[in-house]
């Protein structure tokens, strides 16, 4: 049986993966202090409010850091060595781990989201150099 990301989801993250299955990147925003956060929690990390909602992220961001991995990845990840793992800072502020695809990026490069499909699971957000 293929392990599904939904096996790991909880009521908070399930919404994110449902959106991902439609190739939409969503993040949380606090209704009280307006802070954005990623990954999702059932409360606001900044002000402890319960008034936490979902918004569509613009999908734009910049590369905060990146490393090119020369070790062999687990085959089920669909990554071919060498591949690039990066921390991307979304335009809204939160950072996430991701892969960079396509044309080479540098730290500070503007990037935009795309999606990598996975057999039996929701696709994951990856990033590539933003088209001006």
């Amino acid at each position, binding site marked *: 049986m293929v392990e599904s990301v939904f096996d790991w989801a909880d009521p908070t993250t399930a919404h994110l993966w449902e959106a991902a299955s439609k190739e939409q990147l969503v993040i949380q925003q606090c209704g009280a202090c307006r802070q954005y956060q990623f990954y999702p929690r059932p409360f606001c990390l900044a002000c402890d409010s319960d008034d936490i909602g979902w918004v569509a992220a613009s999908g734009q961001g910049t590369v905060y850091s990146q490393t*090119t991995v020369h070790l062999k990845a687990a085959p089920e990840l669909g990554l071919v060595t060498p591949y690039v793992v990066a921390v991307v800072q979304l335009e809204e502020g939160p950072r996430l*781990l*991701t892969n960079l695809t396509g044309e080479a990026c540098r730290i500070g490069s503007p990037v935009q989201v795309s999606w990598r499909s996975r057999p039996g699971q929701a696709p994951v957000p990856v990033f590539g150099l933003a088209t001006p």
Partner: protein
Amino acid sequence: MLITGPDREVFISGVAEAPLGEVRDHSELSMIALAAREALADAGLTLRDVDGLFVNYLGEEGTVQVGEYLGIQPSYSDSSDLGGAAFVAFLGHASAALQTGRCRVALIVYASRQRTRATRKLNHWNEKATSPQFEQPYGLPAPMGQFGLLAARHMYEYGTTPEQLASVAVTARQWAGLNPKAWKRDPLTIDDVLESRLICAPLHRLDCCLVTDGGGAIVLTIGDRARDSANTPIRVAGTGESARQWHIPQLPSLEASPGVAAARAALQMAEVGHADIDVFEPYDASTISVLLALEDVGFCARGDAGAFVQEGNLTATGSLPSITSGGGLSYCHPGALGILLVIEAVRQLRGQAGARQVPGATVGLVHGIGGLFSTAATAVLVRG
């Protein structure tokens, strides 16, 4: 709360390494038994005296399993999982337990055979519910992927160079050449490091620690019991710890590293300044780990650590002799190095470090990190 007074002072009164390198004739538990009994003999004590037990990575209910094996029924047990930093943090935890009378003799032990077993996995990485969703799909090899990201950011913010990173590995190897127990002792050059294959760029294979077997034991006691011990007791003058993040994107900045809070707390408790430190034992999981440790502890301003190492300050003749065993990069890295950092600092402060002895060393600072650059623990150790 600071518990003071001469009868409340805590000392490391015994240390020992377990068999190191490639261990085929022992299990982890028998390695621990050897190290524990040798460390207790070093302190003039036996297993019968131990009533406080501190372990990490030794299985489910680790203190119970190890306690049964050693024949100890501890009145105080601690298996806080702070990764490789745990063993430095245990100096603080054991001090508190000893000072409040929860135990009278504390034993910290560790062993692993990740070389012989051909695994780099300890028991916990990426098994939390968030990691399979938000980290594992991207293939970041822990922990060198995290260190690669930290190194790349350090280079971007401060202009740190690959040569400066490599100089950490070269310095560690120079020290290892003076340590007969070191795994790698042959000379190493900057070019050797830069020509070794890339692992997680910008880190090369020789920017990364060894994978060896090994372990050790530490005995702590309090007050007069410590002063009567068989060997020079080393006082635990200050300790601090901090846990910051599991997933590397959740680290707000390099300046927010967990090492900053841990080191500040330890230095304040010990009431010593940076200039008082004779020997520095940072956790060198990778070359960037040492640059971050120098800046987190405050030996260097942010961004200056690369030049500081390149100028030779960490060598035997430098201003801050560091990584004096050869460290995780060249001496031994049995999955978690923290216990060996403490043992090396104690040997230096006792004047028992042989060819690598830092002359007159009386104050040492041990700085452990753990997890995925997640935790840090610092201890200031003083002779006398």
